[in-house]
């Protein structure tokens, strides 16, 4: 008789800094699993014959295999398995929305005990870093082909990592002074320590990827002039053009886009002034407009800088697009949430600084043809909220520079590059694209998935196929 395994449905929590401590510092909130916790969690996996988790992973990591390695304490093999498909595991283990991907379809989810796949992935990547050395893969002989990668964010880094391992010369052209894209300018230190991003970037550089920073394609050099020197190009320049609500008062001092606010903090290290030389103004009352992960990052950053911090969101808590983990963290730390609230305009003082926001209460209307309940204003519900800073975190489009300087490159309505979903091929010869520049602002792992598909297609093209 075979022994029936008793299901362990208790998901192991990661130790975290207490809210009353962490809201005063920028250190990482979660400490990660200890070896014991990681092994305990991994042993809960029932090793399904049909692994839905793999199918729901944008880069198709062999999840059951690396989980089994952790259960067997074979951590070196576990990280090796992950790295076959994912060159940024320490990052993905922290910021990927696993609850909407691999963990969402875990068999144990039916009993609300889904495996913490992301936390185990993070554990393995951190374990490898603690060993002090990284196994270097063998680099094949040069194929004679050169690839330009525009943008050093998750999509571009993935393409670079994949193509260098196939023997092509790869050069990354990055507009900012550091590689990492949204990982360095967007996601705060308390959610993704920059040392981790630097570690992953250094690994790619050690493989031989060449890097030019402060290089703005479309200004420094056009795509077409790059293609005189390179055999193929991948555009992964992200979505760096912030949207505003286009309401009165958005040009007042103290009204930021989330991009500017977070870049000042994360890339320019504004919170470490005077160690770093670019300070950020200390505000007392900060309102962040929006309800996504970026809005949570801004609100929690404002809190750490000593401000009273509030999220202003025109729908209800149930519709918040941010990850539940981030919402709960923000709530625990003391971020105020104004739900069903819409800013109408901002008023300034005599010096041109924002001093208050006029907001209107909303209610969710009847479902429309699409089934969605859209927020509609409640007449006569306007109130003034005193603020000295507003951060608009409602979304981004791609920067129009590459699109407007590359003839024949087909763009969508919001300026996103149109690219084949399966290959990343654009309307222009020799040009592929992927990540946020194609989809609009999305997730790190989706950008990496697009990068992987594009890398396969570019490789096929360079080796004599059509890349289609």
């Amino acid at each position: 008789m075979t022994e029936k395994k008793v299901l362990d449905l208790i998901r192991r929590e990661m130790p975290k800094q207490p809210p009353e401590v962490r809201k005063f510092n920028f250190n990482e909130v979660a400490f990660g699993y200890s070896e014991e916790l990681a092994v305990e969690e991994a042993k809960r996996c029932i090793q399904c014959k049909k692994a839905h988790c793999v199918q729901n992973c944008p880069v198709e990591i062999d999840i059951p295999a690396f989980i089994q390695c952790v259960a067997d304490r074979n951590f070196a093999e576990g990280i090796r398995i992950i790295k076959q498909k994912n060159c940024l595991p320490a990052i993905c283990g922290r910021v990927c929305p696993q609850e909407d991907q691999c963990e969402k379809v875990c068999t144990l989810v039916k009993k609300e005990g889904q495996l913490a796949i992301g936390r185990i992935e993070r554990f393995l990547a951190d374990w490898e870093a603690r060993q002090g050395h990284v196994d270097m893969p063998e680099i094949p002989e040069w194929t004679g082909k050169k690839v330009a990668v525009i943008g050093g964010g998750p999509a571009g880094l993935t393409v670079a990592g994949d193509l260098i391992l196939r023997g092509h010369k790869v050069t990354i052209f990055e507009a900012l002074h550091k590689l990492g894209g949204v990982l360095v300018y967007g996601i705060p230190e308390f959610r993704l320590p920059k040392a981790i991003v630097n570690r992953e970037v250094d690994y790619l550089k050690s493989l031989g990827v060449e890097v030019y920073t402060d290089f703005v394609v479309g200004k420094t050099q056009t795509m077409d002039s790059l293609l005189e020197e390179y055999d193929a190009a991948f555009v992964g320049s992200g979505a760096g053009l912030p949207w505003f609500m286009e309401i009165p008062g958005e040009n007042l001092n103290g009204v930021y886009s989330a991009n500017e606010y977070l870049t000042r903090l994360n890339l320019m290290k504004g919170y470490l002034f005077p160690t770093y030389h670019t300070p950020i103004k200390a505000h007392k009352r900060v309102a962040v407009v929006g309800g996504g992960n970026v809005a949570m990052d801004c609100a929690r950053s404002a809190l750490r800088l000593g401000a009273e911090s509030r999220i202003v969101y025109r729908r209800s808590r149930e519709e918040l697009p941010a990850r539940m983990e981030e919402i709960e963290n923000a709530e625990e730390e003391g971020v105020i949430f104004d739900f069903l609230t819409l800013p109408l305009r901002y008023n300034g003082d005599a010096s041109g600084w924002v001093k208050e926001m006029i907001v209107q209460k909303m209610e969710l209307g009847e479902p429309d043809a699409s089934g969605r309940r859209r927020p509609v204003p409640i007449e006569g519900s306007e109130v003034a909220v005193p603020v000295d800073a507003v951060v608009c975190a409602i979304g981004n489009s791609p920067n129009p520079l590459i699109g407007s300087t590359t003839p024949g490159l087909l763009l969508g309505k919001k300026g996103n590059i149109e690219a084949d979903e399966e290959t990343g091929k654009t309307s222009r010869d020799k040009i592929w694209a992927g990540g946020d520049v194609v989809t609009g602002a999305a997730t790190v792992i989706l950008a990496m998935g697009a990068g992987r598909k594009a890398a396969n297609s570019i490789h096929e093209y360079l080796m004599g196929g059509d890349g289609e």
Partner: protein
Amino acid sequence: MQFESLVAVLEFAVRKEEEAAEFYTDLARSMVQPHIARIFEEFAAEEMEHKRKILIVMTGRPGWIPQARIKDLHVADIVEDVVPSSDMGYQQALILAMKAEKAAYLLYMELSSASEDDAMKDLFYLLAQEEARHRLRFEVEYDEQFSGEN
């Protein structure tokens, strides 16, 4: 503004749609970016479709079915006016369009309330609701495209 007959009202409405189509066509020609030019071409085509619907009514065939008051998301009320320029983006294009539809709605509502003839009052009201429907189409698109995280 005086109208002698229902036909005169409908002819006025047809001219308004033609003017709107021409406005968008001119904008399309002046755009730097082809993908934005295409958007204005689509808007122009939609205005010509509105004109076609009015012409059907003019032939006496049933065209519009009177419907309940159209929902108003009030996006057009809170966003600032857009000054047309050759480097507009999709967000500005939608604002321009929804504000134009709102202005047309308000014009017809005003004409409806100013009208002493019941049939003419009803017709203006119907035209206003049609413009409100167009405005809602742009507001919903704006809501979908630019307010997902708001």
